[in-house]
């Protein structure tokens, strides 16, 4: 989410602004990506389920 977290950036290549060793940048980025992906997939599933609940009855009741 932040350029400052990019392991390719010069700032992080030098270990940051004197903060000492922190978590592995690649590992941190992977963790963020996985969390974001899970959040997006969860949201999409939730929207689908809410749509079924809110509109499902109308679909079943439609004239054939």
């Amino acid at each position, binding site marked *: *989410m*932040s350029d*400052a*977290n990019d*392991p390719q950036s010069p*700032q*992080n290549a030098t270990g*940051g*602004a*004197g*903060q000492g060793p*922190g*978590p*592995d*940048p690649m590992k*941190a*980025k992977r*963790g*963020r990506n*996985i*969390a*974001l992906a899970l959040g997006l997939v969860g949201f999409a599933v*939730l929207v689908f*389920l*809410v749509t079924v*609940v*809110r509109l499902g009855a109308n679909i079943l009741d439609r004239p054939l």
Partner: protein
Amino acid sequence: MATMTPAIPATAQPARWQDYMQLLKPRVMSLVVFTGATGLICADAPIHPLLGAVAILCIAIGAGASAALNMWYDADIDALMRRTRGRPVPAGRVQGAEALSMGVVLSLLSVMFMGVAVNWLAAGLLAFTIFFYAVVYSMWLKRSTAQNIVIGGLAGALPPVIGWAAAAGETPLNAWLLCAIIFMWTPPHFWALALYTSEDYEKAGVPMMPVVAGPASTRRQIFIYSLLFTPLCLVPAFTGLGGTAYLAVAGLGGAVFLILAWRVLRSAAGDSADPRVDGRLYDVRAGAKDARNLFAFSILYLSLLFATLLIEGLLGAPSFMNLIPGAA
């Protein structure tokens, strides 16, 4: 935005997903989920379980969004206080702009999803709550008046009303009664904490009551608010909301609350600086123990009140008034 120059380091270490979660203040979120769920259950209105869960999720995300906006705006003063300087923005793990973006996006998402999936009354109340916490409290009241947490407490008090509105599509008197209980609980709760952390608030220039009016006045006001708060907690038993168990919990807990508030009134809490261990809310010197005890018990008491209402609602327990012949 800021009234002073913060010592916030540029983002130096890679942010983990847990840092973004921390922006949402998960502990506050859990309390908001709890009180919102209590309002939803106490409404005793038919709502599809999934839509009920979505309503609670939206309340949680909305609370998290306002917390992220608060952390963005308050990063300068957070950096100056022991209790808050480890937060992601002042610690430099997350950039302020990211916290702002996250807060805005999640605010819009939670309000729109609440409106589309549940109803627009609940969505409107959620939007007002986020606005009140992020703008009225964080950006205006917090740095300008000693009544900051009194008025700002409305934001923390609204979730049960939102939950009620989500289930019933209306907000009757009993919903606002739950709101009033949390609203009146806030001053004694926060001022008890502020009595032994006022050094931090003073350093950050936040006009908390002990800093502005002094500890003696704060102790007196805590006791006055406690005298108003504890009888108010009994009222739901007489408006058809709480049952016998609720009345017992509210009565016994209220008595303990008053005793602890009386002890704070008689104590010297806040009279001298407190060399606490960094970041720990419960390690205090002897003079501040009464304030610490009230702070801790206030959390327990509010949790017990809402847990009892929640359980009574889930079990369909009769209200106290229904047990009195001719009173219902």
